[in-house]
């Protein structure tokens, strides 16, 4: 490998790695700013406000929350939505672990199933009530998308669920889950990184998390500094991308590019 090849490799790498590093530093700066403020400056997402209310109601009425983590695994880009769901799962459990009916988490992939059980277990360890931990509260209900939908339907229909939280990677089968929730009179909160699922979700529920709102749960429910900081970072880069697209489009129209 000669010097020019080496330079090409490094140059190509710098573009990608540079983006990641800039993202990292902007996040750190945002975290410092957020920590100095009294209140996090983020817009209200009505879905999360409704979700917080329904969590309290579910605990008081002795009903169950159901969090569905989708069928995406951490080995793909769909893993991001699964990780967001896991983050919410921990927060949910911290709020509701002493409920008569603790939340149940269903997933459509082996790794997410293991991580969900681990997350639930860690919460019980944290609060020192390991005797209350039930391994089946984190379950794999199917290993491919269609069996996963069928298995999750059983959970919604049989387990006194008052609130359905569908956060993860789905296909159009999310419609069946939302429909089952509606039949049971549950509140359904849906969010997916899949475009088809979002389009279907729009028809079924008013409480839809569109696009990156799915990843914002950590900033609205038991918010942490890093989550709020990452939201601000996303906003910063989003505006940057908008600017780049507009400038590039204008240059293309002008015949420069």
């Amino acid at each position: 490998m000669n010097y020019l090849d080496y330079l090409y490799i490094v140059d190509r790498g710098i573009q990608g790695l540079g983006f990641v590093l800039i993202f990292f530093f902007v996040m750190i700066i945002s975290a410092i700013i957020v920590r100095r403020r009294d209140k996090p400056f983020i817009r209200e997402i009505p879905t999360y406000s409704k979700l917080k209310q329904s969590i309290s109601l579910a605990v008081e009425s002795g009903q169950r929350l159901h969090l569905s983590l989708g069928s995406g695994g951490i080995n793909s880009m769909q893993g991001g939505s699964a990780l967001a769901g896991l983050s919410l799962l921990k927060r949910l459990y911290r709020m509701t672990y002493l409920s008569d009916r603790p939340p149940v988490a269903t997933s459509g992939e082996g790794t997410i199933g293991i991580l969900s059980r681990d997350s639930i277990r860690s919460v019980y360890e944290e609060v020192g009530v390991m005797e209350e931990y039930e391994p089946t509260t984190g379950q794999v209900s199917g290993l491919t998308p269609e069996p996963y939908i069928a298995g999750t339907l059983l959970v919604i229909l049989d387990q006194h669920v008052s609130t359905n939280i569908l956060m993860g990677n789905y296909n159009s089968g999310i419609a069946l889950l939302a429909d089952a929730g509606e039949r049971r009179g549950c509140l359904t909160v849906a969010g997916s990184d899949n475009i088809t699922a979002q389009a279907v979700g729009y028809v079924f529920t008013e409480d839809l998390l569109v696009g990156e709102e799915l990843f914002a749960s950590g900033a609205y429910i038991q918010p942490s500094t890093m989550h709020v900081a990452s939201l601000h970072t996303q906003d910063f880069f989003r505006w940057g991308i908008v600017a780049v697209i507009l400038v590039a489009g204008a240059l293309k129209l002008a015949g420069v590019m």
Partner: protein
Amino acid sequence: MRQLKTSIVVAIAVITGIIVLVGYFIELPVLKNLRIMLLHFAVILIAVTLIVGVVNLVQVHWKKIQNRQSGGVYSLILLISLLVTIIVVGYFGPTSTPSLWIFSNIQIPIASSLIAVLTVVLIYTGIRLLKRGFNFFSLLFMVTVLIVILGTVSFQGFRIPGLRELSTWITQVPAVGGARGILLGVALGTIATGMRVLMGSDRPYGR
């Protein structure tokens, strides 16, 4: 002791993530080999978790049968089907005639009927969309759906001028543009989530 354990776990996760990330962008031989090795480990682990998922499925349904919960009969059917399929496919092979018979005559019809139910549910909800709330966006949604559906059909001698072109334009311009925008946002969210995991501030793997 527990804190030390947690710190080691976090350190392993962070270092592994950084090696794979940097190795993806900069193709130096050392980094590349290390990245490939780690990715091979990941692929093997993911394959193993498939089996773990099956075991978990069996556990949940077995417990349901033991506790005589509602739907226990279906759990029993599931476990029997699982056992029979494992025996047949394991003995005859995945592409043998008995395995293909199970796949063609049981799995595909069941999966297809789920999609058929989905179709009915989507149409039903589409019919009731405007009942939920009559607003501009619901109306726009409905009009778009109708244009795309009617633009797709093709009857000999029956064609509304411009409808197909409009349908094609809708699916290829605003729909794709909107989808791209959403996907960009999702990508940023995914990067942020990954970054939090790499920094150790978000730990989906326990404490």
